[in-house]
C-alpha cells in the first residue's frame, strides 16, 4: 500500500466544515441504538471545544428511514426537511450538523434536487407555508457530526488522556473503519476523502494513535439497508452482509471497528451475537467478539470519560477488552447501574459470545 496514493485522493476530497455556531439535529434511531453517543458529542463540543451549539426540541425525524423503506414519498420528505431548515432559520443559525448519516444523505439529496430542479424547491416552500406558515433559508453549511469531530480531531488529541495504543506492547491498536453508505456513496464530493478511500474516520484513528487496517470487503455494506432489516424474513440478507465483512477482516486481527452511521455499529455489534448463537462462530480474541464503537464513544474514551457515561454498557460485544488494551480503568460493578447507582439488573449471558469479561 502506498500511502501517498491515498493522500492524493484525500487532497481531492476536502470539504468545507463550519467552525462554530451549529444547529444540531438528532437521529431518531441513534437515540435508541447508542443513546450515549449524541450526549457525548454535545459534551465534547460544548465543554471541551467551547463551541456554540443549538438544538430545538420541536425537531422531528427527518423521515430518511421512511423514505428509504419506501413508505414516505419524496415530496413529504422534502417538506419535513424544509421544516427543519425553518427551525434553524428561526433560531438564527445557518450551519446544520446532523447526527445521522441517513439524514445527512437525505439533506444532501434534497439540496441537490433543489439545485437541479428549482421548481421543486418552490413547491416545497409552498407546502411548508400551507402546512405550518413557516419560511426558511437553506443552510450555508451541512456537515455530519463525524465531520465536526474530524475537524477538531487534533484538538481532541491534544486534550487526550488515552490513545489507541496497546499499553502493554506500546504498539498502535489495529482499527477497522466503516463508513455509512449515505455518507459518501451518493455524493462522493460531500464526504471527507470521497467514497472509495474515505478519510473521515481514518483521520481520527491516526491522530489518536491507532493504525487503520484495510481489508478486502471494506467497501461492502454493513447490511442494514432498512428494508432488509425491518422485514424479519429479510434479515438473513442483512446478517449475511455483516458476516461477509467479519470473515474478510478476521485474518487482520482488528482490535476494534469504528463507525459513523447509526445502522452500522448497531448491526456490526448485534450480528456478532446473532452469528454466535446461530452458528457458534465468534470473531476477535477469546470468543469476546470485535468491539464496535461510534466515533463519539471513541472520542470520549480518548478524552478520558467514564466508559459507562458513554453508554458502552448497551453494546452486545463487550468493549472491555478494548478498554483493557488502552489502559482505561472502569468499574465492572457499575456497568449495569443507573446514574443514581440503582442496580438495573444484568443481561443474560449469550451462549458462545463471551459477554462478561470476568466471570460473574
Amino acid at each position, binding site marked *: *500500500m*502506498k500511502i*501517498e*496514493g*491515498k493522500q*492524493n*485522493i484525500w487532497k481531492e476530497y476536502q470539504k468545507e466544515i463550519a467552525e462554530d455556531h451549529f444547529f444540531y439535529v438528532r437521529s431518531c434511531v441513534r437515540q435508541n441504538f447508542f443513546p450515549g453517543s449524541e450526549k457525548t458529542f454535545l459534551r465534547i463540543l460544548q465543554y471541551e471545544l467551547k463551541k456554540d451549539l443549538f438544538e430545538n426540541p420541536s425537531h422531528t425525524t427527518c423521515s430518511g428511514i421512511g423514505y428509504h423503506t419506501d413508505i414516505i414519498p419524496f415530496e413529504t420528505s422534502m417538506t419535513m426537511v424544509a421544516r427543519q431548515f425553518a427551525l434553524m432559520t428561526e433560531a438564527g443559525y445557518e450551519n446544520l450538523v446532523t447526527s445521522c448519516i441517513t439524514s445527512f444523505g437525505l439533506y444532501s439529496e434534497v439540496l441537490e434536487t433543489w439545485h437541479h430542479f428549482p421548481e421543486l424547491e418552490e413547491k416545497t416552500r409552498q407546502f411548508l407555508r400551507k402546512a405550518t406558515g413557516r419560511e426558511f433559508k437553506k443552510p450555508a453549511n451541512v456537515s455530519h457530526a463525524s465531520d465536526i469531530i474530524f475537524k477538531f480531531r487534533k484538538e481532541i488529541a491534544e486534550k487526550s488522556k488515552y490513545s489507541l495504543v496497546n499499553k502493554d506492547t506500546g504498539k498502535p491498536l489495529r482499527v477497522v473503519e466503516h463508513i455509512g453508505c449515505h455518507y459518501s456513496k451518493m455524493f462522493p464530493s460531500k464526504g471527507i476523502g*470521497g*467514497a*472509495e*478511500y474515505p478519510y473521515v474516520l481514518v483521520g481520527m484513528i491516526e491522530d489518536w494513535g491507532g493504525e487503520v487496517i*484495510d*481489508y*478486502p*470487503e*471494506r*467497501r461492502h455494506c454493513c447490511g442494514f439497508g432498512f428494508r432488509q432489516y425491518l422485514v424479519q424474513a429479510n434479515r438473513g440478507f442483512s446478517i449475511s452482509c455483516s458476516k461477509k465483512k467479519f470473515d474478510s477482516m478476521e*485474518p*487482520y486481527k482488528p482490535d476494534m471497528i469504528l463507525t459513523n452511521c447509526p445502522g452500522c455499529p448497531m448491526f456490526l455489534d448485534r450480528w456478532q451475537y446473532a452469528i454466535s448463537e446461530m452458528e457458534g462462530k465468534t470473531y476477535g480474541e477469546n470468543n469476546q467478539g470485535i468491539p464496535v464503537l461510534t466515533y463519539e464513544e471513541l472520542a470520549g474514551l480518548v478524552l478520558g470519560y467514564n466508559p459507562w457515561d458513554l453508554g458502552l454498557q448497551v453494546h452486545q460485544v463487550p468493549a472491555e477488552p478494548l478498554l483493557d488494551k488502552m489502559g482505561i480503568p472502569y468499574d465492572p460493578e457499575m456497568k449495569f447501574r443507573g446514574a443514581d447507582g440503582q442496580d438495573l439488573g444484568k443481561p443474560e449471558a449469550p451462549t458462545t459470545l463471551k459477554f462478561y469479561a470476568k466471570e460473574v
Partner: protein
Amino acid sequence: MSKTAIIIGGGTAGMETASQLARLGVEVDLIEKQPHLGGHLKNWDRLFPNRRNSDEVFDYLEKGMNDGISLHLNAEISNIRKSEEKFTIALQDGKELQSDALVIATGYEVFDARKKEEYGYGIYDNVITSVELEEFFRSNKQKNLLEGVASKRIGIIHCVGSRDEKAGNLYCSKLCCVTGVKQAIEIKELMPDAEIFCFYMDLRMFDRHFEEMYYEAQEKWGIQFIRGRLSEASENTDHTLLVKVEDTLTGLPLKMKVDLLILLVGFVPSPETRRLAAMLGLKEGDDRFLCPADEHTITNSTEIPGVFLAGTVKGPAGIANTITDARATAIQVADYLK
C-alpha cells in the same frame, strides 16, 4: 518561392506527413515539444499485430526526415495567428515561424488510471498500466516483473478509462483489447507458469490478424477470458489483490486473487491538442477529439482553410492507420498549396 507547411507534433503522424510533404517539394517545419521525435511509438516494445520491434517502424519514419524538413525540438508553442493566407506560430523561445498550411498532429494521451480510484492504481503495490508493462519490456527488466512471487497469477483489465461515463469517456479506445492480448502472450512467453486472466466486456478485435491473436492466446497460451468488467480491487495482507467482477457468462459474482493487475489504459484527447484547437477555433466532437470537415469524405481537412489534421488527434488509431492517414493528409496539403 516554394510553399511551406508547419506540422505540429513529431509522432508517427507528424513524421510521416512531414516526410511525404518534403517528397512532394513542400518546405516543412516540424515542431515537437519533446527532445526527440517518435511520440508514443518510442514507448512501445513490440507492436501488434505481428510483434515486430517498434524501433523498426521508428527507423522507417526517421529515414523520411530528409532535406526540406526543419526540425524544432523542445519547442513550446505560445501562440498561433492566422492572417490573410499565412499562419504565424510564436514559440516560447521567441522564435516565429510562418507557413501557408498547418497540420495538427499532436496525438493523444493515455488515460490517468488514478482516476479509477477503486482500482487502486498508485495506491496498491501491484497495480500497473499497460504503458508501464511496455516500459518493463523495453528496458529488459522483464525478469523483475513478478520476481519472487510463487503463484504468478496476473489479471489484465480491459476498458480502463474507456466506455465509462464515470471516467468521462463514452468511446472505445479500440486498441487496448488487442494490446491486452498481445501483452498476455508476451508475459506467458516470459513466464510459462503464469496464469493469465483477461477481464473484458467485449473483445473488440476489429482489425486484420487481431481475432487470430485472440485465438492463439487461447489455443497456444491458455490465456483465460472472463467476461465482466472490474468493479473494484482491494489489497490483501500479502500485497496480492482481490478483484471483484461478475462472471457474466455464468451470471454469478466472482472474486479472485491475483499477484499483479495490469490496467489497459485507453486514449484520451491530449490537453495540448485541445489548447491549440481552441486557439484556432477548431471543432471538437462530443468525445473531445478533433473533427475533420466530413467524417467520410473530407477526413484530413478542417473547416478552416489551410488547417489539416493527421493521426490520433481525431481519435484512437493504430500505427498502420496513422501512417495511412498521414499520407492522405500530405496529399490534401499539397493540393491546397498548389
